[in-house]
């Protein structure tokens, strides 16, 4: 980031939520970079930015789409880069229909399942039919739909890399032309209408990013949960990716889109995942019925005929099975493939919660989270936990998730009575980060080793020690079992060397992750990187992308040369996956001939004499593949990559402006309104993301959106966020005096205009009501909140930090939880809840206590006429959206969406 000439921070509050990482923004600014903050609120980030642009929450696709339109229509896109390195020239199947044709839907939507069949989105094959995904016949197409939980994260597979391209970009079915048409209605006027951003502010932003992109300059974007926590969060990020590809800002120093991760090693927890649908290294979890055999599973990850490194997924997977099951994984038992559990559907946090309420889930481990405070619709979470047989909470303190059975709001309201709850709660004290050794993986994919400073006190244990002991005891329990279900537990390797305290040696776990080969003498030799992995069972590797972190027997993550050494890539500090590359896809930092785009942005280039790629970083490309090399595409895998295919993990080697596969809610991002919105979607007939995951339940009601009766009952928009002084749900900060005193009480932030409208006074109390809950907060009246004019009317936004909770033992500060207000409606790709936008009312004064609080909620919902159907209709206007698409040459085609409005 320090190398950027312009930094746009949007969908995040970097200075507050990532103050340490913000040093790089400060450094870039000191070197002359322009910093722009696009955010509903004026935050501590805005305070040190060159400009703050207020935006209505949830409208980012409209703004980014308009920037795409600006870049294309002003001819400011980076032509050589786009033509050579992206799929702009690729031709799309003629079965594809855009939202332009269908009033806001893409082709393939099934209103009964609420899912898309993405087959019509595919690239055109040489014979005119689509280039489908591998395994489609038995795979995705069997059910006619795709589900977000089934894809790994390595880019969607293609049967092969033989696609049609028109490098003049003139064919109307090229990605470029589709893109151009798709975003033509995203105009500055529309930005004003949708986002509440003035034409001047839009022009400022558009000029800033285009003047700071190209051969000599780069612009970078940084986002956080302000983009992800929406019913179309993945598409927010996709829009930015399209824009950055058009501007040539990917794979180059000072470019990119930085996913600012929320806590230490959240990146690590997706690499070696705590997610239900992924195995380590972004290998997908097998799905029952689709991946019943190993060949079916491997085919679904990647075809051997597609380009790039995913074609070697069999090597990564079989090495993983060797790490899991050791000698029990052999060729004749398909490397113990049948020992892996199978998915039967999305088993995310919220589906699990619903499962608890239905009595389907007996036990629950709560580790490093505080769902009673931190998850959406907190009441639903707490009532669900009350249905469990047992609950294990491992934390530093007795957080609300461990004590809800005696002090939750539901105890106060009488909905729960302690004596009626059968859940057995176990609290296990956890060690803090200074009391254990291991790695953190941060937002740059960098692993940094931390040493243990002191032993944990008393019975406190690290997660590693806890799970090692738990695993050892379970293995002991099932040691003599003859039940087939216990076979995986009996087979799993659990042989870590122990230290003098009986705990596993942390380095040994990192070595297992790094991987090793067993030589003829039966000795283990550590691998130096994932290219050494084999599919014949001779190598073992716990996470292929981490292979090399222990290369040569050295713990590379523990490297700490001050400032990372003299190299501009600072690569003597820690270790970045994969293969210690600091910038991914860095082949794109050179032009198609292999020369740097400019002296100023020189990073990786082709050295003709040496016949290899050289530069400041580890080249993210086959190191001896010449820029003009054009290998036979039928080779498949890395061997098929041409010299100008920088995106080596994509099935066609190109950056995807258009995603023919991989996303379940459309190949191009579309602006839809949030689940709850006081604004009609001005861009399309379709109001909300049609493929969003809906939980239409009495305990999860939604406020009426614009155009529905009762919308005036919940007239304001709220958004939730973090403060520097606290850590998420507060488990690591509300128990600490030095942090608690800095932000002692739950508060809401409102503009002076809203304060006047509702009689709120600074430092007084306010009650906030959503269809899910009633909470109270102190009031901060501030000009940092700006009322926006959207579609001709004023939209007031209410800011709510979410760090406080009710209950917990010995918390220094407590307060009502903002997340209680949030409903559960999810992004279908990621299963993330929409916690950044909701509708509410605000009234002066404190909330009623006990059961009176529920009565107030009920009276609101009655007045608004809320039912489980409210906002849960998938197709806004079936008449307009589901009819046959207009012929291509229909001159009114582009206006389709408007005529219905």
């Amino acid at each position, binding site marked *: 980031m320090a190398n950027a000439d312009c930094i746009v921070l949007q969908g995040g509050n970097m*200075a*507050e939520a990532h*103050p*340490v990482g*913000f*040093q790089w923004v*400060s450094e870039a*600014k*000191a070197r002359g970079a*322009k910093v722009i903050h696009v955010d509903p609120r*004026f935050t*501590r*980030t*805005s*305070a*040190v*930015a*060159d*400009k*703050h642009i207020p935006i209505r929450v949830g409208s980012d696709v409209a703004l980014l789409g308009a920037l795409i339109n600006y870049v294309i229509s002003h001819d400011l896109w980076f032509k050589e880069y786009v033509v050579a390195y992206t799929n702009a020239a690729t031709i799309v199947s003629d079965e594809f229909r855009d939202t332009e044709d269908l009033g806001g839907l893409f082709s393939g939507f099934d209103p009964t399942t609420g899912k898309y069949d993405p087959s019509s989105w595919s690239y055109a094959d040489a014979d005119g039919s689509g280039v489908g995904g591998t395994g489609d016949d038995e795979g995705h197409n069997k059910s006619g739909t795709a589900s977000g939980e089934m894809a790994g994260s390595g880019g969607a597979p293609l049967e092969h890399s033989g696609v049609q391209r028109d490098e003049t970009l003139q064919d109307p079915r090229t990605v470029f032309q589709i893109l151009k048409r798709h975003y033509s209605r995203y105009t500055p006027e529309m930005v004003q209408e949708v986002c509440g951003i003035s034409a001047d502010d839009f022009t400022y932003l558009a000029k800033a990013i285009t003047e700071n992109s190209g051969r000599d300059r780069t612009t970078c974007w940084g986002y956080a949960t302000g983009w992800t926590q929406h019913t179309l969060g993945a598409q927010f990020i996709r829009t930015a990716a399209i824009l950055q590809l058009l501007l040539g800002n990917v794979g180059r120093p000072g470019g990119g889109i930085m996913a600012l991760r929320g806590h230490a090693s959240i990146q690590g927890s997706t690499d070696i995942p705590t997610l239900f649908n992924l195995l380590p290294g972004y290998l997908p979890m097998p799905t029952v019925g689709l991946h019943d055999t190993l060949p079916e599973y491997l085919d679904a990850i990647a075809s051997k005929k597609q380009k790039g490194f995913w074609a070697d997924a069999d090597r990564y997977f079989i090495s993983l099975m060797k790490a899991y099951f050791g000698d029990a994984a052999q060729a004749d038992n398909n490397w113990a493939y049948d020992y892996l559990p199978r998915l039967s559907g999305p088993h995310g946090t919220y589906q699990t919660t619903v499962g608890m309420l239905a009595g389907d889930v007996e036990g629950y481990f709560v580790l490093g989270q505080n769902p009673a405070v931190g998850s959406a619709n907190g009441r639903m979470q707490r009532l669900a936990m009350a249905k469990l047989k047992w609950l294990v909470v491992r934390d530093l303190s007795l957080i609300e998730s461990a004590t809800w059975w005696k002090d939750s709001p539901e105890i106060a309201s009488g909905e729960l009575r302690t004596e009626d709850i059968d859940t057995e709660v176990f609290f296990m004290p956890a060690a803090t980060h200074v009391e254990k050794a291991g790695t953190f993986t941060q937002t740059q994919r960098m692993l940094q080793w931390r040493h243990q400073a002191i032993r944990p006190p008393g019975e406190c244990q690290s997660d590693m020690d806890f799970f090692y002991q738990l695993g050892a005891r379970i293995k002991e329990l099932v040691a003599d079992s003859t039940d087939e279900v216990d076979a995986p537990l009996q087979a799993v390797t659990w042989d870590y060397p122990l230290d003098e305290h009986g705990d596993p040696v942390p380095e040994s776990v990192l070595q297992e992750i790094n991987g090793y080969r067993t030589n003829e003498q039966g000795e283990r030799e550590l691998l130096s990187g994932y290219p050494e992995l084999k599919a014949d069972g001779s190598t073992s590797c716990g996470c292929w992308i981490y292979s090399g972190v222990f290369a040569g027997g050295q713990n590379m993550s523990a490297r700490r040369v001050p400032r990372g050494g003299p190299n501009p890539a600072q690569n003597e500090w820690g270790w970045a996956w994969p293969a210690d590359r600091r910038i991914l896809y860095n082949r794109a930092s050179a032009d198609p001939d292999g020369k740097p785009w400019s002296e100023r942005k020189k990073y990786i280039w082709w050295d003709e004499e040496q016949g290899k790629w050289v530069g400041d970083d580890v080249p993210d490309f086959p190191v001896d593949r010449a820029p003009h090399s054009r290998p036979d595409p039928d080779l498949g895998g890395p061997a098929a990559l041409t010299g100008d295919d920088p995106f080596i993990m994509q099935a066609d080697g190109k950056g995807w402006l258009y995603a023919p596969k991989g996303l379940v809610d459309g190949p191009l991002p579309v602006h839809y309104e949030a689940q709850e919105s006081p604004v009609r979607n001005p861009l399309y007939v379709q109001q909300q993301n049609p493929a969003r995951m809906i939980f239409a339940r009495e305990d999860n009601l939604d406020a009426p959106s614009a155009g529905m009766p009762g919308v005036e009952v919940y007239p304001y928009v709220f958004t939730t966020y973090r*403060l*520097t*002084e606290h850590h998420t749900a507060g488990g690591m900060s509300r128990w600490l*005096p*030095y*942090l*608690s*005193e*800095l*932000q*002692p*009480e739950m*508060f809401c932030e409102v503009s002076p205009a809203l304060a006047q409208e509702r009689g709120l006074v*600074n*430092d007084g109390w306010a009650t906030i009501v959503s269809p899910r809950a009633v909470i109270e907060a*102190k009031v*901060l009246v*501030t*000009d*940092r909140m700006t009322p926006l004019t959207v579609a001709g009317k004023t939209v007031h936004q209410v800011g709510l930090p979410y760090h406080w909770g009710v209950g917990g033992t*010995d*918390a*220094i*500060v*407590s*307060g009502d939880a903002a997340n209680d207000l949030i409903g559960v409606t999810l992004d279908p790709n990621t299963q993330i809840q929409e916690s950044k936008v909701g509708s509410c009312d605000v009234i002066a004064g404190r909330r009623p206590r006990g059961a009176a609080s529920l009565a107030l909620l009920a009276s609101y919902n009655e007045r608004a006429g809320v039912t489980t159907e409210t906002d849960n209709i998938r197709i806004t206007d079936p008449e307009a959206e589901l009819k046959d698409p207009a012929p291509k040459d229909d001159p009114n085609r582009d206006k389709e969406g408007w005529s219905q409005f």
Partner: protein
Amino acid sequence: MSIDEHSVLGHQLHGPTDPAADAHWQVHKSRKGFFTDTSICIGCKACEVACKEWNRNPRDGDLELTGWSYDNTQALGASTWRHVAFIEQDRERIEEARESGRQLVSLGMPTVGPPAKTPEAATDSAIAAGADTSAPDTPEFRWLMASDVCKHCTHAGCLDVCPTGALFRTEFSTVVVQPDVCNGCGTCVAGCPFGVIQRRSDGTVEPTTGRGEQKGQQPEVEKKGIAQKCTLCYDRLLDDETPACAKTCPTTSIKYGDHTDLVDIARDRVAQLHEQGLTEARLYGANELDGVGGTGAMFLLLDEPQVYGLPPDPRVPTADLPVMAKRAGMAVAGMVTAAAIAFLGAR
């Protein structure tokens, strides 16, 4: 005994000086200090927390929201040795600040950068360089953040009035309390022109009831009743370590180092901001001719000092000591003369 204009018992009371030498350190280190550049502060308060952690100071907030923007600490005190102020300003106030800063430049005040660089000249050179000279800050609104700390004055009022010798000038020219010598008399509290030094109460107020039973409770507070303030991490300095607040600051808003270097850095930074059209930038504490002889901890401010709760013209009370002593001497002499005349006249 003759009374020097500047000193008492060989100790200089105001004007430029080398404080450690003035305090009779035969061998001493170069003067250390802070330069807090508030223009790049992100208000994270890591300095407040790092300071309390290192110095083991107790929590002293009453755990209630103040309603003062994000400032719930409010002021420096016996247990809060770094304090981050948050000030929200509208366009009118920003323009006033810009204008008042511009006037400081045209007055040629030594506090704001090299006098050769007038704003006009700076702007001309910037235009010549093709730079964007429009003032980059959001014009409608701004949010100032500034981390305050003990100033470690060249002439420290607290030290000069301390009757027990608990306060002393270190070899780094900083001012430090020895808690085992301090008897809690409180003279220093009145002696500080910045209101920095305070006596430590029990560190808490009465527990608040109704919202969390643990509120207000914490372990027994040490050094109760003793005057306390920032030591510029004297213990860390002795080990050649950076003070905790500067070490933790993620944006280098708090810079630590040799005082003379910091003055240069500070002046360059003001000049740079002025070139960018941010004429509201000005230095505080870098003028050795001010009422405290300049401070060890300096600040770059974006508005007038009083906006941040800093006195605009601090003056060490003992600065007037020679004059007072002279006047008292004259008065005594006058009275003696008058008595003598009266006595002689009566004869």
